[in-house]
């Protein structure tokens, strides 16, 4: 765990302690379970985003994808009555294909990630609304999928299974990002894509793979979100989720220029964001201020982080110059 991550963890604990003192309901099992469920859902989404951001890209369409893929998933199992494992595989595959198309447009046709995924944001939202004729996708009364519901919205030992899912995914993705050859390539491309190319890395394929990973994790979280809300109105479902994901990554120390950030960081970023949401509710802050609180905290966080870096660099200089002075005096 880097110092940055440690700082973030301490911040999370301090904020948690303050909220718990002001409103002890923060520590009620029901509240903690709810919050950890949301952490699970948004965490999966944010890890996907992180893989794209590390390459210096951005994926703005994930919110709309959560709506579209969620709508399709519910439609597949509730209306078209597909077996849920089949529907699950189809949705994941669709997420992968969409990621592949984004990656292809970005690496082969050299379009800017912002532009490609902004168009995605508009297109998928529109398609989702058209698909349901602007209606709501949901389950009919009495429809039950016990296994699926247990895996997505259920709990084990009082802990939401979505949270367990996040932990498993986080461990796997940590190995991929921080230990694998692919992860090293991602960092290299994020730092300097040209130099990576001149080192013989097939940068196009690697970047495309990052968008595919993002697509798959988005699809997975779309299923989780769908099973959590159980009914989806595509006009608003998942709105701004791409910004939550980007915010979690930025809070977790990712640079939008690419090449920087850790998996632990993005998880902690998600935790902090959800803690703040919870704080707004528990402290009786008007919920209309929700976004303002988040924005303010992210801004302060990024500012402190940057100033801390400047401070440390300065202290290193002073320490080093003291050493030379002491050395000269000793002579």
């Amino acid at each position, binding site marked *: 765990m880097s110092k940055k991550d440690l700082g973030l963890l301490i911040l999370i604990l301090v904020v948690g302690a303050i909220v718990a003192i002001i409103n002890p309901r923060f520590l009620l099992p029901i509240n903690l379970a709810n919050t950890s469920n949301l952490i699970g859902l948004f965490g999966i989404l944010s890890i996907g985003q992180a893989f794209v951001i590390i390459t210096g890209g951005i994926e703005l369409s994930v919110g709309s994808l959560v709506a579209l893929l969620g709508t399709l998933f519910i439609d597949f199992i509730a209306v078209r009555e597909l077996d849920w494992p089949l529907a699950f595989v189809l949705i994941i595959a669709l997420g992968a294909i969409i990621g592949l198309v984004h990656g292809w447009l970005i690496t082969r046709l050299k379009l800017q990630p912002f532009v490609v995924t902004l168009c995605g944001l508009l297109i998928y939202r529109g398609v989702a609304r058209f698909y349901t004729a602007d209606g709501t996708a949901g389950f009919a009364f009495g429809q039950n999928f016990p296994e699926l519901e247990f895996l997505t919205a259920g709990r084990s030992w009082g802990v939401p299974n979505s949270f367990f899912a996040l932990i498993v995914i986080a461990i796997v993705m940590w*190995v991929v990002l921080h*230990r*694998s*050859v*692919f*992860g*090293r*390539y991602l*960092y*290299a491309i994020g*730092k*300097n894509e*040209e*130099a*990576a*190319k*001149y*080192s*013989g*890395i*097939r940068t196009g394929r690697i970047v495309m793979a990052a968008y595919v990973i993002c697509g798959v994790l988005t699809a997975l979280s779309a299923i989780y979100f769908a099973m959590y809300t159980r009914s989806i109105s595509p006009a608003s479902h998942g709105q701004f989720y791409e910004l939550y994901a980007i915010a979690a990554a930025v809070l977790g120390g990712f640079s939008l220029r690419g*090449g920087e950030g850790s998996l632990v960081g993005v998880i902690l970023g998600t935790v902090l964001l959800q803690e703040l949401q919870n704080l707004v509710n528990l402290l009786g802050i008007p919920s209309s201020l929700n976004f303002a609180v988040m924005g303010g905290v992210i801004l302060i966080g990024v500012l402190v982080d940057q100033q801390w870096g400047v401070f440390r660099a300065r202290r290193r*200089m002073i*320490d*080093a*110059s003291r*050493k*030379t002075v002491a050395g000269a005096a000793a002579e």
Partner: protein
Amino acid sequence: MARRLLSGMMNYSDTSISAIAPFLSLENVRKTYPGVVALDGFSMEVRPGEVIGLVGENGAGKSTLMKILGGVTTPDTGTITVDGTAHKGLSVEGSLGSGIAFVHQELNLFENLDVAANIFFGREPLRAGPFKLVDRARLRTMVAPLLKRVGANFSADTQVADLSLAQQQMVEIAKALSIKARLVILDEPTSSLPIAETDKLLDVIKGLKADGISVIFISHRLHEVERVADRVVVLRDGMLAGTLGKRDINHDQMVKLMIGRMLKEREKASEAARAPGAVALAAKAVRTPAYPGRPVDLDVRRGEILGLAGLVGSGRTELARVFFGIDGCLGGTLELDGTPLALASAADAVAHGIFLVPEDRKLTGILLDLSIAQNISLPNLPAHAKRSLVSAGAETATAEKQKKNLGIKAPSVQTRTGTLSGGNQQKVVLGKWLAMNPKVMILDEPTRGIDIGAKAEIYGLMRALADAGVAVLMISSDMEEVIGVSDRIAVMHEGQISGILDKEQFSQENVLLLAVGKQPK
């Protein structure tokens, strides 16, 4: 007025110059950084209308000196006297105000603006009225005389992006003149210029001198210093290693002062005539994106160093990019060891053992934020991994071997490459390819911005590669280097090979003639 008169009177006999009060003098300047003494009791003088050549190896203290003169940093002790006024240190405004102007190695121009806008950027003449509109007519009349003084052959409304490097440098100098500079400091101005353009720049320096403006000319290209400098100041380890008067300026003296000893011998290709090896890489009527209408034929043989000379823009780098699979071939074929070769990417070239040490080290050669070990393992990462998980141990082992082999000076192989000197960075680039098995090694300006000691080492490495049977292709704009290191020289002119010189035909004149498209003698 008086100054003008003075400069007119000066005829540069040594006695008359030394009688005139110096424009700038540094006395006993000392500057320390944490752990390093960058300048140690350094003194020098610059008189009006004098061209000072400032030479020294990388790390000798030149950049610190420049920072002090530019007012970016202040010395710990010592005095700086500018135009008769003594200072403890200069500020950026103070430096500019007293007429000290810089032309940096990396040009600071806005490529998307025209020449006039660049020269008076931030100081544009404005029209009367509340909207602060730029008075373009007046701007042009202000720029014209400046361009004339630097001998520009382009107009004030040319986009900077359309200018050659030498022309851009002229714009920088015009910018310096526009602030009524009395001392122009040129930091490695010729390092990226081809031979013909360098001559133009040296003429501009002579013009400045004739106008009574002092020049400090910093360069690693000693023969250019020889040509323009009135005096040479040599820095070594932050101290003044020596000063050479006009008559004593020569290559060997400068080198001796720079490194504190004579180089054993000037780097030369081994005398024994080499039996040419088999052709490793062959280009047959290859067309590059830069010159699609001009097919290139070129053979690089095993065991030779083929020098590729030519003016900047003659298509050498573009050819190297095609050989390395960065750009596609628009026509013709590449052959490796006699079999046709299709390269869709640099990864393909690397898989075939064709490696490139690119021209721009920081942009394409290495990743400055990664460690030495990570840079060296990058092209061959799967070989340093078990079940696609990177093995730090394997990486370190490979890197340690290259560090020892190449003599990379760094605390450890975990050191960030961004903190290394240019020469050591270049060795890391070489190290990552040497750790694999090169068949064809292409080096694009391998010694640009590298000090003399490291240069000699890199020449030695290239020779060792060639001796081991590797085909080495070296692109270089440094005439001494091309002639001193190559076994054969191919010269490019406007996208085509205009001729190939064998050892006995080697001469600066022949290379130049071919570079401008004429026949050698």
